[in-house]
């Protein structure tokens, strides 16, 4: 599963993208964030306030309780500030 990070989530994690293989017990976006947060100090920092982090599956906005089954590309980022 390809994971993308943007803005300060990217800066904290220290990379823009990576491929991960979470265990099958990780079923939702929220659980994926918790699992990522346990991968190291930089991840713990990036996801320390997971409630503010937004996510997209295959380029569509999703909520923390959205299942990740079948996702090819998952992105994590702060609230958008475009326009």
């Amino acid at each position, binding site marked *: 599963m390809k994971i993308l990070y943007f803005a300060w989530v990217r800066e904290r994690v220290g990379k823009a993208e990576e491929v991960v293989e979470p265990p099958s017990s990780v079923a939702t976006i929220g659980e994926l964030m918790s699992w990522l947060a346990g991968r190291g100090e930089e991840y713990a920092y990036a996801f320390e306030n997971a409630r503010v982090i937004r996510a997209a599956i295959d380029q569509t906005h999703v909520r923390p309780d959205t299942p990740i089954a079948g996702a090819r590309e998952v992105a994590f980022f702060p609230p958008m*500030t*475009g326009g």
Partner: protein
Amino acid sequence: MTIPVTIRLQSADFDAAAEARLLTQGRADIGAVVSFTGICRGGAGADAIAAMTLEHYPGMAEAEIARHAEEALARWPLMGLTIIHRYGRLVPGDNIVLVVTASAHRTAAFEAAEFLMDYLKTQAPFWKREERAGGPSWVAAHADDDAAAARWTPGKTSSSS
């Protein structure tokens, strides 16, 4: 009739006047053109910024903007629509975003332009990073932008967001 819709994400500047002209030239059915230009502000004093970098999510940004353009076309009788959003490094005074709407009457043109700007501010995957004397910082999202966007959702009021 096909409604001309232009959506572009680019690092280069845009020419708001030329884009508006493209929508109206050779036509006599358009009665109202609304053009919104968002510009990089410089701030003042300790808040002064030297530059701003707009990061975006390629692919999703185009898809989100296209989806909201479709929604605008479904909700208002538009005769033309242009949306251009820049990314990359900008300095104060630089253009950031352009929305041009054309319709027979002004209400549709105004409402569609406001709708699109509200959604670009809150749903399109762009992030602003500002460079100040004290160092760079990411712009925080504004609650009033969420409230502005919420007013377009039926049954949802700005106070509920």
